[in-house]
């Protein structure tokens, strides 16, 4: 019974990681960049929601504005910091992403201070608990998992069935060829960032409801764990991100349950290292080989 309880927790945390991992995966798939700043966009989303709810505005609007904020921020970052470097060597792009990440974290610290602020999650998801077959499930858990799975389904439909989705797949396979076929590469890339950020925004709200606090460094660790999830599942793969997210979420809950909470983060890093060394393409990813 306890195990099932933990399993549910793991699924809830895992869903959040999955949503964020998707954003990482999609951006990597299209411009081969590990967007270090992804996690920090989430942090900003969290703060936006916090501020808006604090101002007394309806939580529903807060959620929407927060997601919109994430999207706008991501698109702006893409236009200002990443687009000029599209032809540059990968190291430059990576360093820039790190720079953006740090910039966001430190500005947040300047504005809101380094101390964690508690997040009024009950205003967004009422604290209702159900009991099914002896298991206690909160509304929040159900919502989180449902929202995550639904988002992924919507995303899969988007990528497989719509024109923009096709454009996204084309650009991630071969940017040059896609351009020659008349696809507006810039718009496609911006759109990808936007979708990734929207998912991250949803993930941000759900995460802030799970760990009911926000601080400037929230994004960093969250981003790393979501990234591990993305790599585990296979960078560039949607079902992979979901699987990876669940795996990492459950691993984290398991380690905590075993009483080794100070090693939790280390375990996640170990998983990362093992995956990168044993099967860098993850469960379902595709490998990119250099032509000799």
């Amino acid at each position, binding site marked *: 019974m306890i195990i099932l309880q933990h399993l549910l927790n793991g699924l809830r945390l895992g869903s959040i990681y999955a949503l964020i991992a998707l954003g990482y995966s999609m951006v990597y798939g299209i411009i081969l960049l590990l967007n270090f700043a992804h996690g920090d966009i989430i942090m900003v989303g969290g703060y936006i929601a916090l501020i808006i709810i604090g101002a007394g505005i309806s939580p529903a609007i807060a959620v929407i504005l927060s997601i919109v904020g994430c999207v706008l921020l991501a698109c702006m970052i893409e236009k200002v910091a990443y687009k000029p470097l599209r032809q540059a060597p990968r190291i430059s792009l*990576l360093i820039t992403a790190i720079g953006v990440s*740090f910039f966001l974290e430190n500005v947040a610290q300047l504005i809101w201070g380094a101390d964690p602020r508690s997040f009024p999650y009950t205003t967004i998801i009422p604290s209702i608990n159900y009991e099914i077959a002896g298991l206690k499930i909160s509304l929040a858990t159900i919502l989180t998992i449902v929202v995550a799975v639904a988002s992924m389904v919507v995303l899969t439909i988007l990528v497989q069935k719509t024109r923009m989705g096709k454009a996204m797949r084309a650009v991630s396979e071969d940017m040059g060829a896609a351009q020659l076929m008349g696809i507006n590469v810039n718009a496609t890339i911006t759109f990808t960032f936007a979708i990734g950020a929207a998912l991250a925004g949803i993930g941000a709200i759900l995460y802030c409801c799970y760990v009911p606090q926000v601080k400037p460094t929230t994004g960093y660790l969250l981003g790393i764990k979501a990234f591990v999830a993305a790599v585990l599942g296979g960078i560039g793969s949607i079902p992979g991100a979901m699987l990876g997210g669940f795996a990492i979420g459950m691993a984290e809950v398991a380690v905590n349950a075993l009483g080794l909470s100070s090693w939790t983060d280390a375990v996640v890093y170990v998983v990362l290292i093992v995956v990168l060394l044993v099967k860098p393409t993850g469960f379902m990813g595709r490998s990119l080989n250099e032509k000799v």
Partner: protein
Amino acid sequence: MKKSFRFSVPTRYIINFGLTALFIICGTLIVNGGAFKRATNAIILQIGIYIILTVSLNMVTGYLGQLPLGHAGFMAVGAYTGAILWKATAAMPCWVSILLGLIAAGLMAAVFGVLIGIPALRLKGDYLAIITLGFGEIIRICIINLAGITGGTPGLLNIPKYSSFFVVFTAAAITCYVIHTIMHSRHGRAILAIRENEIAADACGINLTYYKVFTFAVSAFFAGVAGALFAGFQGSLFPKSFDFMASINILVMVVLGGMGSMLGSVVAATVLTALPLVLQGLSEYRMVIYSLLLIIVMIFKPSGLMGKYDFSLTGIIEDAINGRLFRKKRKEGAENE
């Protein structure tokens, strides 16, 4: 073509050694004589430590062309190794203890460099960055959790403060010398070749794994030495000093100085360490400015302030003698010392 004046090779060595020794001796006398405030002395010592960190990281990022994000991890290994050894050998004569501590710190860090490098360097680019980040963080978390040896989060205290101007800057000079001589040899060419075109280097018979791990280990060695000097400077060690931010701090210096330029690394380390002194009121904004600087430099001058320019003191003197000091720089080949 008019024959220009060039120092003979032995003369060049003498000039370089002589000037360096002069600098260290003068510096020791000035600093120990109390010419500066305590705060300034602290900054000066930190400059020396960061020079070692930056120059060693530059070996992997600038010369080998990879981006490891766990440099602070090696620094931590060296710091704790040095500190523990120094506390344990407090009874021995000063010089013996210092030397033992520094060498042990470096070797320990180098061992970690090899252990981490062998698996990590099979990966490239972003993946290498993340995996080294992971290793660096694991080291830090281990330090926190193995509190019995390392003092954990509360810290390791009462470390003998061996890091004087003489010790720090002699170590810095040795670091620069060793890395310089390695790079200006067939080993250095092999490393640069790997950066330029790994597949071609492979086809020329360069053993990729060996040189990648070698570079990583040398870089880790000096990071370890710097870590020990850091311990001897602060007198106490806390795991928080060796987190991801610390690695990024060093990375910023390497990037701004120019990846591939030792002079750039030295200058950037000096300027960026001294900056808080100058920008007294802006200390809160320091990291914001850093990160902005990073982004701006990457977008507008990705090769950093000095690019890949490599410095030759005797080269400048020769240029002056030949009246070429202010003409366009020529590209120095490997035969300039």
